């Protein structure tokens, strides 16, 4: 066990994976000697050599295409996209290629060993292009998995599980939390399950669900609600595709109320899928409409980031209006 921040946990996860399996390769823009602009791959080139941890030319479509070739050849690529905002040039390689590789070939070939890491989300004064949360786009793509950790312990365990998983996984790292706080993280290899949500806090009146950095927002909202005597069940989804419906249904059947929180814009965000599925699954148990507290339907702003942000106060508003319904 060591105290690590989320960034160190990612670094430790990569090091552990590279130690265990010499086919694990880490690459991307500035990932090599420099160790990445956030330093997530710091020290890996030194330890494992330039052929296993290296800079690529500046081309996201190339990075992912290259990674798919490696995966098809049975290496274990862990590609970094410097910011999730820059994953879109690789959208075709991810959505048309990675997601469909196994299916279209009848399993003659697959790229299951692929993992793509990308820092995502706001909170660092990044404006339109260093703040986006693009996870929902990928959840509409059968064949991909989408995983998002909320703290250092999860970051290492879920990243190792993503690398081990035999499907292409997008692993979005909440960059605002990179250095925000530390937690105990095992030094050795361990796995956390993909596709399983975590009930972070049990409650009886209303369920709050989020992922990544927003989990602390709903926890804060739950604290505020507790002051008003409202007992919130707090759930961290952890994997968005495929997501853990059973855990959500169980919670919702208990509480009858649900607030979904995400930072991405509301329209067609992943909250829409959760609400659509759960109103169907829990129709007779719902005491009030499922509400979404999200970023507004605008690009991510700069000066008015605070006004954009789906924070604990706005979540509390939603909790209140759900309870008052």
């Amino acid at each position, binding site marked *: 066990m060591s105290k690590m921040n989320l960034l160190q946990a990612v670094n430790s996860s990569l090091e552990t994976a590279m130690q265990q399996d010499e086919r694990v390769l880490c690459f991307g823009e500035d990932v090599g000697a420099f160790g990445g602009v956030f330093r997530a791959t710091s020290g890996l080139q030194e330890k494992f050599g330039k052929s296993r941890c290296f800079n690529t030319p500046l*081309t996201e479509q190339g990075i992912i*295409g290259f990674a798919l070739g490696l995966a098809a050849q049975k290496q274990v690529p862990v590609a970094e996209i410097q910011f999730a905002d820059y994953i879109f040039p690789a959208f075709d390689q991810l959505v*048309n290629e990675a997601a469909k590789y196994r299916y279209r070939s009848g399993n003659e070939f697959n790229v299951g060993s692929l993992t793509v890491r990308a820092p995502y989300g706001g909170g660092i004064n990044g404006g339109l292009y260093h703040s986006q949360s693009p996870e929902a786009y990928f959840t509409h793509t059968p064949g991909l998995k989408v995983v998002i950790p909320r703290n250092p312990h999860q970051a290492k365990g879920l990243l190792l599980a993503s690398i081990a998983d035999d499907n292409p996984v997008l692993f979005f790292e909440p960059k605002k939390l990179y250095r925000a706080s530390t937690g105990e993280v095992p030094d050795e290899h361990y796995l956390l399950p993909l596709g399983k949500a975590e009930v972070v806090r049990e409650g009886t009146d209303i369920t709050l669900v989020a992922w990544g950095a927003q989990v602390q927002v709903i926890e804060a909202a739950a604290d505020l609600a507790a002051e008003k005597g409202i007992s919130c069940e707090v759930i961290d989804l952890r994997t968005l595709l495929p997501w853990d419906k059973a855990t959500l249904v169980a919670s919702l059947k208990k509480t009858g109320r649900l607030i979904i929180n995400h930072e991405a814009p509301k329209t067609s965000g992943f909250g829409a899928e959760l609400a659509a599925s759960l109103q169907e699954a829990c129709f007779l148990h719902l005491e009030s409409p499922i509400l979404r507290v999200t970023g507004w339907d605008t690009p991510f702003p700069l000066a008015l980031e605070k006004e954009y942000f789906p924070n604990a106060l706005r979540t509390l508003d939603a909790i209140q209006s759900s309870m008052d319904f």
Partner: protein
Amino acid sequence: MSDQRSLFHQQVYQPDFLDPKASAIPTFSLLQQKGELYPTAKAPDLSKEKALKIHDTFLFIRALDERMLASQRQGRISFYMTEIGEEAADICSAAALKPEDTIFAQYREQGALAYRGFSVDQFMNQIFANELDLGKGRQMPVHYGSKALNYVTISSPLATQIPQATGYAYGLKQDKKDQVVICYFGEGAASEGDFHAGLNMAAVLKAPVIFFCRNNGYAISTPAHEQFAGDGIASRGTGYGIKTLRVDGNDALAVYEATRLARKIALEEHQPILIEAMTYRLGAHSSSDDPSGYRSKAEESKWQEQDPVARFRNWLIKQGWWSQEEDEASLAKHRKQVAEAMKKAEKLPKPALDTLFSDVYDELPWHLEEQLEEAKAHILRNPTAYPATAGRLVK
């Protein structure tokens, strides 16, 4: 790390813009149409056995393409693409490689696959998307693939295979394998961003991959001069720092020799190679296309006279390795085999319902389990609406 650019370049004091029109890249050629070598040309070291295997593949592909196009016209299959006129490019490049080398194709390289040993039945099963198709009936005709033959399954989005080929080749180098990758693409696909990424990354990361461009003059209706303004695709190679050769794509011997050398350099020097094969798509783009809307018969017949198969046959006959009679008999044999295989494949059932859901992931997640059950139940309630799958479902 750190800057390795020279501070003191060669300097000039006149602003002379490099003029792309100033020079043209020549074409490596060996064989004339009548089957004779060019005066100073030297034939590659090609055994009789290999030469005949190449020619046999030529004839098989002619028989296959001819029959499948006819079947499409008859409505027996929905779609087809021929490679007529370009057989020397893919088949002779594939012949110059080892079977362990991996092929990333675009879609017009069935010849390379046939050379590797994909059986006529395997072709038919894919084209008819039946239950024996290696691809499980999921893709349109001509999207072949075979792990056993190191031929990566084709996907329709153009040029996506180019950076993938680079990654695959890098992986081979990591494994210290004496193997290369060959990556085929058209001059049209070379306009995609993925082309740029794939070639540049291969050069920087020193991946042993042969980029093989079939410059056949057209991308569907778009002629090459509306595709690029430079000297073909070869003129881009040196810009990436990649050794490059332009070759007569209708010249079986030149293509073979160029690829053989490319393989050698790629392996020995750990680097990519670019080959541009100049050829012509004699047929339509696909069975959905009609080239009379964008080019003349006269143009086509000019190229018909450059037929790569005839050229190579002429050489084989001059070598004393082959005869006109053997040629006719062999073609007839292939035609018969194709026709028989087709009849067989046509009768086979479609893949079963569960193949609709399998292989999306390594295992079925809960939501696909649910959807499979829902689909099953629905089909069992409405069997006549789903003739292909209903009969095979167990209640």
